[in-house]
Structures are given as structure tokens and as C-alpha cells.
């Protein structure tokens, strides 16, 4: 079965600095999607960024970018110029062709002024 592992329960970063959140996954599939979701205290799940496995180029959305290493089954999230509003739980998720999302256990990100 596919699994998603986030080995950092908590991370902290100073405002304006850069932080990287780690995610690894296990699958025998070659075609899949990977996502990073943000969950602020409001509990709302917000899509941050997504990556198609067949694309070699790393996805980027403004201050958020990923380092996708398909062979290593690694999908890390880099947040540049961190802002206080970035403080939240971040979940890595893997999606199979049948559209089932499999989530990691999350990383709590604290941002200090």
C-alpha cells in the first residue's frame, strides 16, 4: 500500500527566512500526483502546490516551490521569504489514479517575527 511519511513533526523559521519541509512516499506506480496542503487554525484545507509525477520540472507557486526527486521518492516543500501567515500544519499527500488522497501525518510550522 502507498504510504506518505513526514518525519518532521514541527519546524520553525524566522520571518523572511527560508524553510524546507520534508516528505517521502512509497509507491510502485509510475504515474501519480503529489500535493502540499496547508491547514491553518481555521482547519480549512488549502492547496499550496502540486506536482505531476511525469513532469521533471519542479513546481513553483510564488514563494512556494518543491524539490521532486522521483527516484528517491522524495517531495520536499520550500517556503521562501516566510511570513507570519505561513504558520500552519502542512500535509504532504499522494494521489493515485483513482483519486484517493493519502496524507502524511503533517508538519507544524511556526514562524517567529
Amino acid at each position: 500500500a502507498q504510504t506518505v511519511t513526514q518525519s518532521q513533526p514541527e519546524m520553525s523559521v524566522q520571518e523572511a527566512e527560508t524553510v524546507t519541509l520534508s516528505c517521502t512516499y512509497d509507491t510502485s506506480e509510475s504515474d501519480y500526483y503529489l500535493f502540499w496542503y496547508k491547514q491553518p487554525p481555521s482547519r480549512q484545507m488549502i492547496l499550496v502546490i502540486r506536482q505531476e509525477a511525469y513532469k521533471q520540472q519542479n513546481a513553483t507557486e510564488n514563494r512556494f516551490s518543491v524539490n521532486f526527486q522521483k527516484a528517491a521518492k522524495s517531495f520536499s516543500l520550500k517556503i521562501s521569504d516566510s511570513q507570519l501567515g505561513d504558520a500552519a500544519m502542512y500535509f504532504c499527500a499522494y494521489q493515485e489514479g483513482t483519486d484517493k488522497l493519502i496524507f502524511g501525518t503533517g508538519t507544524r510550522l511556526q514562524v517567529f517575527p
Partner: protein
Amino acid sequence: NAGVTQTPKFRILKIGQSMTLQCAQDMNHNYMYWYRQDPGMGLKLIYYSVGAGITDKGEVPNGYNVSRSTTEDFPLRLELAAPSQTSVYFCASSPRTGELYEQYFGPGTRLTVT
């Protein structure tokens, strides 16, 4: 366009009671999902539906039932509530067309069973 809506936002149940969590979406999405999130954990799939009249079990379906009579609505039924069902429940929907695989989430329902 309200997106995915869930009611109620909070609910306290006594052991053995039953209730239905409501979920509706106005985006004409075919795919709908129910997840639960236990404290300190990621979301786990309970049930999903690929269209009206079609439902299937996810990772943790025991103690729950679903139905999908319309494209818009996907209620989750809890029968004989147990303390292990204390969790936050999220409904999500997806268009499942082309590369639009993003799932859109509702705001969640916090359920406590005592």
C-alpha cells in the same frame, strides 16, 4: 459559488446515538469524498463517490454509511456513535477531468462522542 459546504460545524453526541453529517457542493463535481482527521494525524478516507448512485469504501469505513442520490449532496451517516469516532470530518469534491485533480475541501465538522 459557495464551494463545498458542511453542516453542522460542531456536534456532541452521546454513545449509541446516530447522526448525519451533511455535505454539499455547487461546482458540479462528479467525485466526492469523506475524510476524518484524528488529533495530530493526517486525513484518512472514509468513503468516496465517483458519481450519483455510486459509492465505495475508503481506508476506514467501519461505523459509517453514505449515499449519493444527487451530484450535489453526499451525506455521511454515523450509526451507534462510539468514542472512537470523535474526530474532525472533512468533505471534499473533485472535477476529475483532464489534469484537474485538485480536491476542494469543506470547512470540516468537529464531532465529539461522549
